[in-house]
């Protein structure tokens, strides 16, 4: 009996002191292997009397079980230690930067374009487009600006070189020719907005020879100035994401509308930043009017039956106002720093449900 206790103590000590899995395996073989001490004991049971077996059987088996358990426990312990050691050796400097990935941006003009479309789409305005190089007839004459009309002087038109067929065309000075194209091709009711690039021979601190306009056109049998006012109010509220705006109309003149109006929005510029719906300043935001009956007729629409309004403003200008961009010319310089500062993330998609801006 004492032999067994001493043997058990000796084996368990050896297990406890095993330094690694290999050491532990040596212990296991010496105790439980074919020729191991415990295996020998178990084998000796075969030569014992039933009485001896009765006593030694449970003792030897119990010894075997305890040693097996101790080895298993030690094995787990050694494995955990080995894993810990490996993990410790695999440590990285997690403050190192990630692999380089460029962060792309969407230009403010595109973003504001999407914002404007989101708003007007909700009111059933389709998006109409036309070419940058435009017929003089569509850019001017059909819009009630005949060749010698003084209003042509206001337009500072770019002319494209005379073509081989003798024709000469202009870079559109506004997106109104898109209205002409729409009316020539579509019967009322019409609700469109026409955003796009426009060109004027003009370059200074507040003018760029290329800029972006959006225009709206509604032609049906009932739409009047009150609807125009409502649409603009709703638009600016939605666009500037404020609960209230105040607009002021001034009579103006555009050959393609009659009556013609320009709109100012009440704003507050006192804090260095512009706020809408409050304050004592007025800022011009749109030109507009009821479509001149002559224009309707020029486009094959019965002006006795149909009427409607048109309005327009600058997309670049909207972007400047909403996002605090100071200089229109900077829009087209492609300065990487500017593009990153004023650009929008790819997934910043303006929606009415999620909000136009963050």
């Amino acid at each position, binding site marked *: 009996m004492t032999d067994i206790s001493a043997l058990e103590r000796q084996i368990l000590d050896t297990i406890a002191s095993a330094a690694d899995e290999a050491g532990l395996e040596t212990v296991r073989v010496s105790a439980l292997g074919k020729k191991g001490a415990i295996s020998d004991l178990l084998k000796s049971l075969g030569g014992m009397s039933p009485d001896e077996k009765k006593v030694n059987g449970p003792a030897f088996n119990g010894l075997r079980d305890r040693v097996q358990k101790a080895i298993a426990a030690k094995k787990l312990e050694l494995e955990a230690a080995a894993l810990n050691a490996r993990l410790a050796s695999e440590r990285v400097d997690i403050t190192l930067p990630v692999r380089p990935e460029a962060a792309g941006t969407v*230009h403010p003009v595109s973003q504001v374009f999407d914002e404007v479309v989101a708003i007007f789409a909700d009111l059933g305005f389709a998006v109409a487009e036309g070419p940058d190089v435009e017929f003089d007839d569509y850019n001017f004459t059909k819009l009630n600006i005949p060749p010698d009309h003084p209003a042509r002087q206001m337009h500072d038109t770019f002319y494209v070189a005379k073509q081989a067929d003798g024709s000469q065309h202009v870079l559109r000075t506004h997106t109104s020719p898109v209205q002409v194209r729409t009316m020539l091709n579509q019967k009322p009711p019409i609700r469109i907005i026409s955003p796009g690039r426009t060109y004027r*021979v003009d370059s200074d601190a507040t003018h760029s020879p290329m800029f972006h306009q959006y225009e709206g056109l509604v032609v049906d049998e009932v739409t009047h*100035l009150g609807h125009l006012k409502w649409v603009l109010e709703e638009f600016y509220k939605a666009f500037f994401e404020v609960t209230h705006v105040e607009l002021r109309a001034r009579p103006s003149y555009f050959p393609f509308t009659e009556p013609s109006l320009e709109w100012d929005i009440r704003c507050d510029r006192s804090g260095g930043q512009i706020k809408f719906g409050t304050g004592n300043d007025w800022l011009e935001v749109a030109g507009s009017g009821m479509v001149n009956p002559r224009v309707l007729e020029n486009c094959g629409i019965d002006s006795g039956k149909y009427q409607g309004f048109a309005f327009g403003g600058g997309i670049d200008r909207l972007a400047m106002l909403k996002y605090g961009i100071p200089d229109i010319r900077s*829009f087209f310089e492609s300065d990487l720093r500017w593009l990153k500062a004023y650009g929008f993330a790819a997934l910043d998609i303006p929606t009415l449900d999620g909000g136009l801006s963050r």
Partner: protein
Amino acid sequence: MKFPLSWLKDHLETDADVQTIADKLTAIGLEVETVEDAGARVKDFVVAYVISADKHPNADRLHLCSVDVGGKEPVQVVCGAPNARAGIKVVFARPGTVIPVSGETLKIGTIRGVESRGMMCSGRELLISDDHDGIIELPDDAVVGAPAATALGLTDPVIDISFTPNRGDCTSVWGVARDLAAAGLGKLKTPKVEPVAGKFPSPKTITLNFAGKPACPFFAGRVIKGVKNGPSPVWVQDRLKAIGLRPINALVDVTNLISHDRGRPLHVFDADKLSGNVQARLAHDGEKLLALDGKTYTLDSEMCVIADDTAAQSIGGVMGGEDTGSSETTTTVFVESAWFEPVSVAATGRKLQLMSDARYRFERGVDPEFVVPGLELATKLILEWCGGEPSDIVVAGEVPAWKREIAFAPGTVERIGGLKIEKERIVEILTHLGFSVAENGTALKVSPPSWRSDIDGAADLVEEVVRIYGLEHVPSAPMTRPNAIARPVLTSSQKRRRLVRRALAARGFNEAVTYSFIPRAHAALFGGGDDARQLENPIAAEMDALRPSPLPSLLAAAARNQARGFTDLQLFEIGAAFQSGLPGGQQTFAAGIRVGAGVRSWTKAAHPADAFDVKADVLTALETAMGSPMTAPIKAKAPAWYHPGRSGTLALGPKVLAVFGELHPSVVAAFDLTGPVAAFELILDAIPDSKTKKTSFSPSPYQAVERDFAFVVNASVSADEVVKAAKAAERALIETVAIFDVYEGKGVPDGKKSLAITVRLQPKDKTLTDTEIEAVGQKIVMAVAKATGGTLRA
């Protein structure tokens, strides 16, 4: 147009202050640009009297003055002005007054030990003149303690309004007053023009000499003899100066005054310099005229001139001639008051690139009924200022017809303007504006006045009514929603553009928007630069060509950014590429560039921009746009601005969808860029509409198997050929074929390369046995061998 308030008050009886007038002008469509009110700047300054001016006890050049500023006690002031002396009246600033020149508030100060309780001001300190040699000395009759503005004559604010091109009737102070009176801001009091009786028959006759429609249908004139030309009266000179005109002499000033006062351009000829009689006619082609601006103009047969018996002496309605203009020695004049066709004047002015006050008015339409009254008014003023004796008036032609009637249903105001206004009020507004209104059943018969040539229909009358009634009264009216829940509005091409834009931004590209016009030399590098795509009047010489692609502007932008120290760039633009100078000759491109040797990183070697980067960009963009995998074949060729061996074209049949690749080194060099540069041009308009719909999908329950093969093929064999052949070997089983290794070098014979593919087999009805897999493998090897001559690598 500028005018001082006092001039307006010659025509308008009103108590309204300048701000009220300015606000009303803007509200009725005569937009006020500025109100220059010098008086407002000096409103806190008062008139003071210098009682005594002694030497400052501690300074030789300073005066110690006692000044009466209208209070109980005189005020002690230290003043350094050399002209400070007892007995003069001065402009005085009390402590607390803001001094215009410095913007600072004046404080009680101590100067060389003596207290000074105010300041006597120079013209410069008040910003009313450059004079800073001494203090202002006011006239003796200035009232002590009263505002200095009055004594300084600064009570007359100048209003500057900008006109819309339709309001020719408002290009005069009279016209502005007329509109203000109609808007209820006072009463029009313009004196009626009285005729001046002629003393003798005009020695000059007038003829209108036109074959067709006369460019000058009505012409009145008269001779005034015995005039003495010289400076015009001071009040006239002051007025002209106030509106930015230079007084010349009485005979010229009279025309400028009447032009701005009444909107009636006139011309005064020196009659002694005219040979024979006067006629209006079209110029002869090539006829030359030295105009009053000192330039010689070459005229053509569409331009109207006023001529004498020998030659053209004035460009009708635009500018007089130098040779027959009035001078200090003029004693006999011929005064012209004519009416020119607006279109003719506009065309002439445009062709000659000549703007003048006369043209500005004639092309907007001047009052045809004021031709003779204008002449009478000029006669009266010339006689007053220069003396002389007038002839009878001679007239040629007739007042051009201007009377017309517009049928106007009063309900139109509400139908178009959204504003409910009583019929009586409508009639009243129109009448105040000079329209005559007659009842005609349910409608009105409205006749515009002679000065409103811009009115030609009911819509114009609506505008007149609502602008005078007040646009602020138009109530907002909600529009109907065509559908309770909004339907999609974007076209497929608009959606594609949006998707491609955001896909490229998601791939790290910064979107740029660049000018559509670029230097011709740049355009030429990209297949453009021909004559048909040039601008006739570019904003700058180096922006003269319509771009054939957005690439050149992106490359120029990249070069600018590199100059700022940003070497690695990804830029893209979605915009027009012009294939011709015709409307419709443009396509929408999504073009992008990747520039640079790659960002250095601790994780891996820098990766220079290459053809496979932009190939991935193009494929991603296309697949995003189409919503389905891009299966169009890629051809190893691209336009000349790409690297001939590192570029490709993606086309569906003959329709090119995209070109991409590394840019040709000579193009990179032309833009002074540090490369490499890889670029792509995606023709968004060429992308077919997406037809893919989601279909039902049932994954196979059987085990998929992957097998690798390495082939040795001729180096000229493209990877695509191998993949295609392998795929075709057993279409029902082979799901994908992917290239995972390309090798040339040791172990592979010269002129050959090794291409390794992995093939994924996906059975649909049973698990594959080893024998079946082996059989497919054999088929693949044979198919590749047949298509490319490749052999399995040992």
